[in-house]
């Protein structure tokens, strides 16, 4: 397995995320399949119009958990490289909240690995979304 420092790129930042930077990081002459997931802010959630969102993050642990996921996905699906960039702070409708980028020799593991990472990220990475609607705000997933 390749050196983790060159095949994993994790970031948590309060500036817009860059799909091309993720593409450049994961692309490689040995790879034929690159898969990207881009999560964006929707204007409607569970039927309610959303005006904007605020992302809170436990920075140090969030980055560590993202690194764990990226390495686990690389090893489990035999990926060449993984870039995992997450936004924090205030986001508007249409803004990019997260980018998952993976590369592999063939395409099937790229799709599988990319979807696995975003599914797991939503379960374990300590980042929280506060949703603002016309009638107030609340932290998503917090209460039953």
């Amino acid at each position: 397995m390749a050196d983790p420092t060159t095949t994993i790129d994790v970031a948590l930042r309060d500036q817009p995320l860059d799909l091309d930077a993720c593409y450049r990081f994961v692309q490689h002459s040995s790879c034929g399949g690159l898969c990207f997931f881009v999560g964006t802010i929707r204007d409607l959630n569970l039927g309610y119009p959303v005006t904007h969102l605020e992302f809170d993050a436990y920075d140090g642990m969030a980055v560590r958990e993202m690194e764990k996921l990226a390495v686990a996905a690389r090893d489990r699906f035999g990926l060449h490289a993984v870039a995992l960039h997450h936004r924090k702070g205030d986001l508007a409708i249409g803004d990019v909240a997260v980018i998952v980028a993976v590369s592999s020799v063939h395409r099937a593991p790229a799709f599988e690995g990319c979807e696995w990472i975003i599914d797991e990220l939503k379960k374990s990475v300590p980042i929280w979304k506060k949703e603002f609607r016309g009638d107030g705000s609340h932290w998503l997933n917090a209460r039953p």
Partner: protein
Amino acid sequence: MDKLAPLIEHMKILCFGVAREIAGGPSLQLQDVAGKSVSELRTALLRQYPAFAELTGFAVARNEAYATDDEVIGQDDEVVIIPPVSGG
């Protein structure tokens, strides 16, 4: 104050997301946490802040990693309440 009351130690517990609203700020204080298990910390937290019981659940992190209920908390640990995450 520290010298006059050496037997009661307060530990600062960091809070994020909805936990900050329940705590009324970015952290809360719990007494005599060091040496207790995570499970005991949960009990103490729910006694002092019953509103945490209204959440879907919460995890506890120790030094930037999820802690299991039987882990024992050290005096210099960074302890954090992790309400249900909603990133991505």
